[in-house]
């Protein structure tokens, strides 16, 4: 088709322009060496400010509020104070002395707000700051709530008629989760108990994975690649499995049928193994999602950084490198789209399997 010729030639031209731009930049910039490892880790981790870009040596970022509790008193300030000075000195509200906040660059508390005591020791206060990931979570959750509100309103208005627009986009995904994930794994009597959670977690992970791939400002924060977020989701699955498990489920853990007695009586080997398995399953869920998404982001960032690394050695090499590196980065981004869907699917499928095992009906022999 003729349109493909235009699309391919246009994208090649854009790669060349990108190369020319980095060629020009490499000549005009001062020789501040590019530390690829640092840049990549910075993009993947959480931070107190949202760095958008650097314009002619000046950083353009959104400085997010830091909310810190010390001895029951709340201190709120913008993270901009750490951009200008190393330490932020304020008045301690309990005893009116000087209170010093800082963000250390190495050690145990690297990158986190600490209180520097008078004798130099560091103390980590209770920190509920709005960091980059928290703000990104607010934005993505607002987006998800708006989308689903519109979809439910469409269902209420249209009734039994065929779906239209946004509703038709979401309907097949929701039906897919209901039929191919939930109903296949959980018996029909108990499916409806678990279905809201399964649909929620599927869309939460899928939409957050996708938003993490968009490099433009309000999106592009690595949320599902944050171990605390994935650990939270895995904890939800863990609590729902174990709090709603029926007697069959607990019998299978503590008194596994079909296992000889000597594995249970003097040393309860089988119950120990089953209990450890009960804890490792959600842990594995969390680590799988975290590692997949973070690794994907690191690979894309690595390809883009390779342009700058080569440009440091030779500007013309950087221009040539940028064409190939951009093509490779686009290819890896397409894989990341697939991974976004697959990881949401795998998390939801495994949660459904655990729910199914926890609510199994007793099979009559």
């Amino acid at each position, binding site marked *: 088709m003729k349109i493909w010729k235009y699309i391919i030639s246009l994208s090649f031209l854009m790669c060349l322009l990108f190369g020319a731009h980095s060629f020009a930049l490499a000549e005009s910039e001062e020789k501040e060496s590019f530390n690829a490892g640092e840049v990549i880790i910075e993009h993947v981790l959480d931070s107190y400010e949202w760095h958008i870009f650097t314009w002619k040596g000046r950083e353009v970022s959104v400085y997010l509020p830091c909310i810190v509790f010390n001895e029951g008193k709340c201190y709120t300030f913008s993270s901009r104070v750490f951009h200008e000075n190393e330490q932020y000195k304020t008045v301690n509200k309990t005893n009116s002395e000087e209170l010093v906040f800082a963000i250390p660059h190495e050690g145990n508390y690297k990158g986190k707000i600490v209180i520097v005591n008078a004798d130099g020791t560091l103390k980590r206060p209770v920190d509920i700051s709005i960091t980059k990931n928290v703000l990104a979570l607010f934005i993505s959750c607002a987006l998800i709530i708006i989308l689903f509100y519109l979809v439910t309103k469409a269902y209420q208005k249209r009734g039994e008629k065929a779906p239209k627009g946004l509703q038709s986009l979401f309907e097949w995904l929701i039906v897919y989760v209901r039929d191919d994930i939930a109903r296949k794994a959980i018996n029909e009597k108990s499916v409806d108990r678990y279905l809201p959670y399964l649909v929620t977690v599927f869309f939460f992970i899928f939409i957050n994975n996708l938003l993490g791939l968009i490099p433009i400002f309000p999106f592009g924060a690595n949320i599902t690649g944050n171990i605390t977020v994935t650990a939270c989701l895995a904890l939800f699955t863990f609590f729902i499995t174990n709090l709603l498990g029926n007697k069959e489920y607990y019998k299978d853990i503590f008194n596994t049928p079909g296992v000889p007695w000597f594995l249970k009586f003097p040393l309860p080997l089988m119950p120990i193994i089953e209990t450890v398995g009960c804890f490792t399953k959600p842990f594995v869920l969390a680590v*799988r999602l*975290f590692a*997949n998404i973070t690794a994907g982001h690191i690979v894309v960032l690595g390809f883009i950084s390779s342009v700058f690394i080569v440009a440091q050695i030779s500007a013309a090499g950087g221009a040539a490198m940028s064409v190939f590196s951009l093509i490779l980065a686009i290819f890896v981004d397409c894989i990341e789209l697939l991974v976004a869907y*697959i990881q949401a699917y795998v998390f939801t499928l495994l949660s459904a399997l655990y729910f199914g095992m926890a609510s199994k009906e007793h099979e009559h022999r």
Partner: protein
Amino acid sequence: MSLLVLLQEVARAATDLAPIAKLGAALAAGIATIGAAMGISKIGSSALESMARQPEAAGNIQSSMILAAAFVEGVSLFAVVVCLLVAVG
């Protein structure tokens, strides 16, 4: 044998073992990739064979293949996470 002796000498001479730790982390990440590649290639080849034997089951087989590949990938990513922890800490 001589490699072992060499490693021991290097370990005795080095006051700080961080470079060796990073070397170990990099090698381990490579080995984990080999394991993942072997697993996923087995899954892919058996899926393709069974799709050739029974083309009408191709849809089912394809989804199972993607699912199994995600699990194998997950296991290798555990190793990557451990290597990252060693390399930067």
